[in-house]
């Protein structure tokens, strides 16, 4: 499972890093993206969805950060 840890990275750098990391993955790969609560989790998931990737789930961990699961879709 590809894990892309974007905790501690503010917007829009986190989105740009996610984009770039996903570019390196094969079409159809599932990835887990770790995001901080607040602006990052409010912005990054839908921006990645707008880029064409398939969002599978989004849940908050006990520690407070979020895990976004998605499948990379080649744009």
């Amino acid at each position, binding site marked *: 499972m590809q894990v892309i840890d974007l905790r501690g990275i503010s917007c829009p750098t986190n989105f740009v890093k996610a984009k770039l990391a996903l570019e390196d993955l094969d079409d159809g790969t599932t990835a887990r993206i770790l995001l901080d609560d607040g602006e990052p*989790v*409010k912005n990054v*998931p*839908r921006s990645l*969805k707008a880029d064409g990737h398939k*969002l*599978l*789930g*989004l849940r908050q961990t006990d520690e407070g950060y979020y895990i976004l699961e998605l499948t990379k879709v080649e744009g």
Partner: protein
Amino acid sequence: MADEKQTKLDLNNLKAGGFIKERGKDLFTVRLRVPGGRMSVPRLKKIAEVAEKFGGEFVHLSVRQSIELININFKDFDAVVEALGEKNQKVASCGARVRVPVACGGCEYNPNGLVDTQKSALEVDEKLFGTPTGHHKFKVAFAGCPFDCPKSATNDIGFQGAIYPALDRDACISCGLCAKSCVPKAIVMGEDNKPVFSNDPCIWCGDCVKVCPTEAWSVRKKGYTVRIGGKWGRNPLVGTLFATFLPEDKAIDFTAAVLEWYKQKAEGFGRIRLGDTIIKEGPEALLEHLHNIFPQYTVAETIAPQVIATQIGK
């Protein structure tokens, strides 16, 4: 005695205002008409050219999105108007007339924008700009969403973009972001881990729709929240609610209807703004007038424009 050329001036150019006398002898500020603050690059280049040729060392960006040419000699009015006309740049208004509408960027490129404020501003400008009110200035503003950067309720008539959300429960992945983002708490997560919506606290901001990663929340309807009677200056008033979810294509007719009422009802009160007219006549009078023309969008009841007490404490 040398031959003196008679100063020729086309006084028609001065009809709608926009030429404002400065302190210096024979000098005027020329306020340009820039509805919604949208300035194409060719027009901007032409303005710079004209400013360089006829104006002072700088132009001024006014608080209502205009570009003002400074230190224009009145003898150059015709030449300035003609040169600007080459790129369709017109002069704005001042005085007791409908002013150039102000608008934020709207939904074109700003992901927060809910409605096309630029389109509304251009339409209202085209149809109603410069209309004499007979009493005082008349200011119009369009805001794309409840962030309301243009401060719409401080205008005689202010339009604020709004959306009413709808939920597709099957598309919902129970991430809880909508409930988390909802500031007035109109959305809370239910026991089945799906969102529960309450109509009363909802302020139609659309944050739920914007944040939803799967488009489970979508726009059921959208339009303008309309507030009337605002003004600033020495005795500020904030406009109050008169219509909700007014379709964007009805903004012109709605504004025209408010103008009609203002022209009539302010008769005999001298130099009075719309807000003070509403306070004098009672908001029900305007409400009834609007309800007769726009029954589906006019609210059932409202309050008079509210005084903003900026002098307390001095």
